């Protein structure tokens, strides 16, 4: 379980505005709650449970501190301006960093589901339970993110 600590901190940090210390506190609290859970209640979906608890706690923290970022449904169409894209000619060694930079330009809700899908390896259904979005909405957000990223990458080709 402890190998999920750093990925969870990274995930939560994005939800709380990049505050690693606060993200660490949230993850620590989630692990403590996990230790107090009956094994039967988390068996088979422990990682999903951790992400769900961390996300809910992060949203509580952000709301409490007035730094809430919009994660509600219906914001999937929000696309940031394309003027901050990385450079046109991509070196082979920089491709991955460029892709991550493109992901950073996506709306927050798209970034979140893209990371849960392609970084944490969750399925649409698991992402739906973590984010409390419908499965179809998760699919729509990922579809829109993929479409945007493809367009951005194509625009960067020399």
């Amino acid at each position, binding site marked *: 379980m402890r190998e999920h600590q*750093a990925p969870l901190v990274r995930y939560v940090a994005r939800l709380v505005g990049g505050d690693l210390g606060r*993200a660490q506190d949230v993850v620590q609290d989630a692990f403590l709650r996990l230790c107090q859970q009956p094994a039967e209640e988390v068996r088979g979906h422990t990682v999903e449970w951790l992400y769900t608890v961390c996300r809910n706690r992060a949203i509580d923290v952000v709301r409490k501190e007035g730094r809430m970022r919009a994660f509600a449904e219906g914001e999937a169409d929000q696309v940031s301006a394309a003027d901050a894209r990385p450079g046109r000619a991509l070196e082979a060694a920089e491709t991955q960093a460029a892709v991550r930079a493109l992901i950073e330009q996506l709306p927050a809700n798209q970034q979140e589901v893209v990371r849960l899908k392609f*970084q944490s390896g969750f399925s649409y259904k698991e992402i739906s339970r973590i984010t409390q979005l419908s499965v179809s909405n998760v699919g729509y957000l*990922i579809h829109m993110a993929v479409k945007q990223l493809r367009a951005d990458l194509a625009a960067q080709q020399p």
Partner: protein
Amino acid sequence: MSESKMSPDDPRLSAFALGELSAAESAAVAAEVARDPALAAEVSAIQALGGDLKSALAAEPLPVTPPLELGEQIEFPSVRRSRKHFPFYWVSGLAAAGFAVLVLVQSPDSPLVDTPQGATLSTADALLRRASPPAPKPMWRRRRCAAPRRAAVDRSVDGTGSDSRGQCAPVRKTGRAGATGSRGDRS
């Protein structure tokens, strides 16, 4: 001529490319993709981008995190579950039984250490002594002597005869006095 009903903008196409559809839905989309080369190209492009996203995000550095402070007594549910079957009651039961035997053996009033010389027996000796049947009574009778006899005093050296306090050696009813003490022990 069959016309494709699926648009390249259909989110089901991404779900199909990423393996997120059920078997029935996947079969339906696969039939559409098989009929339309544009959809097939779209699926290939989505899958290729999915691979790029995975590798790019996998290479993202993780934040340095301090160790979790969960306390010494707190364990993860999986660990707690695996230890639940350890037979602590067996260990505690065996320990209690061993302690009871030790106390019984070490007690001065214990029948297990009731030796004629008052010496302390080992636990094994005491248990063997307790488990062995009582010695058979001799077939001879004791008689009182007025004074210790020389032969009886001599035999007291090997413990088979009388002692120096005037006890007579056992005498068989039909035999000579003090002559068959050691043989009588074997009967």
